[in-house]
């Protein structure tokens, strides 16, 4: 975390509804520049929706969303495009483009948005692939020819290819075995540290949250019900957090339908 503790993102009273289903019901959150914040929460609690709202992929219904002190809910498409140029995203299912080779996926933004020469872009892509432990040979394969764990690494390499100052990770370890999860966690941690980036990670994997996060926030019932330092989460007295981090079947968290009534 930076010494000044300036805010990178400020979310105030964010609401989002899909049809008659309310997903976010007044989210308040402050993400400081240079910190790694992990948002935890059960399946279907709106973590990915919140991430997409931050990215501007889903418009919010109500509230204020600031990045670097600038309101981003009313930005034009050009401003949106410019803002995204400094953001790297690793999607839940990797979201690699099947029609392109692995290295072309990594170099995608360099070639298509920054119009870099393909040869130079390939060199950078191969460097990034090496940084996540993948060889040049893998770069020539198509995404369908590599394992799920390797696809996550490629997605990470793509996210960091342009050295962005903001990184988003959506369930980076879901579906991976514990060893691969650990490798991905380490890679994310190292990449964020090397870039000095502000990182927001969405996960329900507690070992991942503890490993990656400086701070952890828990989303439940459409709100952030707890937010604090990663090392404090085990000692927090919030029963919802305690039930979640210990994976207990019994506790205040019931069925998803009850999740809308948390105070």
């Amino acid at each position: 975390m930076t010494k000044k503790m300036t805010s990178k993102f400020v979310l105030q009273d964010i609401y989002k509804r899909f049809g008659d289903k309310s997903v976010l019901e007044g989210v308040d959150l402050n993400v400081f520049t240079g910190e790694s914040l992990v948002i935890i929460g059960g399946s279907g609690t709106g973590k990915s929706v919140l991430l997409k709202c931050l990215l501007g992929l889903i418009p919010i219904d109500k509230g204020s969303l600031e990045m670097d002190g600038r309101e981003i809910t009313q930005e034009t498409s050009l401003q949106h495009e410019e803002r995204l140029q400094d953001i790297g995203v690793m999607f839940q299912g990797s979201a690699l483009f099947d029609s392109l080779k692995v290295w072309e996926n990594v170099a995608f933004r360099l070639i298509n948005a920054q119009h870099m020469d393909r040869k130079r872009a390939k060199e950078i892509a191969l460097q990034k692939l090496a940084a996540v432990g993948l060889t040049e040979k893998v770069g020539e394969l198509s995404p369908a020819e590599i394992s799920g764990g390797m696809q996550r690494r490629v997605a990470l390499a793509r996210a960091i290819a342009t050295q962005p100052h903001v990184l988003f990770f959506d369930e980076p370890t879901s579906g991976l075995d514990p060893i691969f999860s650990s490798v991905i966690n380490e890679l994310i941690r190292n990449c964020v540290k090397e870039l000095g980036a502000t990182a927001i990670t969405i996960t329900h994997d507690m070992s991942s949250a503890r490993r990656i996060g400086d701070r952890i926030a828990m989303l439940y019932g459409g709100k952030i019900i707890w937010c604090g330092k990663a090392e404090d989460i085990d000692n927090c007295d919030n029963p919802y957090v305690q039930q979640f981090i210990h994976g207990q079947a019994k506790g205040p968290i019931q069925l998803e339908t009850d999740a809308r009534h948390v105070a």
Partner: protein
Amino acid sequence: MVWVLSSIGRVFIEFLASTGRLILFLANSLVQGLQPPYYFRQMLRQFWEIGYLSLPVVGLTAFFTGMVLALQSYTGFSRFNAEGAIASVVALSMTRELGPVLAGLMISGRIGGAMAAEIGTMRVTEQLDALITLSTNPQKYLIAPRLLAGVTMLPLLVLVADVIGIFGGYIVSIYRLDFNPAIYMKQTFDFIQMGDVTSGLIKAAVFGFIITSMGCYHGFNSKGGAQGVGKATTYAVVSSSILILVANYFLTALLF
């Protein structure tokens, strides 16, 4: 009575809303496509997939259609000693009608469905979101090149289909119906005019736009995983096939 009227009204309003969404989608894609940067690799890939890779399907369809047309024409025309008209009937039917319509319907199944499935899969696997976060407009990168390829490749395919279809008719007429090759060729070219060919090519360009529009629109707006992609594919093929037949009538009336 009120229930019936409200149901009809709902369907009508939904139809208008869908049409509006489609028009906005296409207008936005075309505007995006006209502005630089241009994704030439994407364009070439679409030219290759829609144009070159469709040649076998279109060629075979045209070849057998030309052959059947010659046989059927002979059956009818021989009853009133008008066998001499077979060559011109095959040529005119292929260039004005069967070439563009059959090629359009075949490409609708091959390309429209594949486009909807590919873009739909990209939607449900967050690849379209990934494109946006990688500072690339999906409509500019994915849709505009496909629309361009559809409009330019279909006429070329139809031109090939016309030639192959006429050749199919020639083969049957010469080797099965014992026509004189030189006379058959002369009758083919004596009656065919440039307008017959160009009207078919104009139809083909419109059909190409319809096929790629439907494939892209339904794929782009698909939701709900594999089932959603399946539905998008079905909608793309069915809607483009119907629209081709409807547009064919109006274009024929216009260009006749």
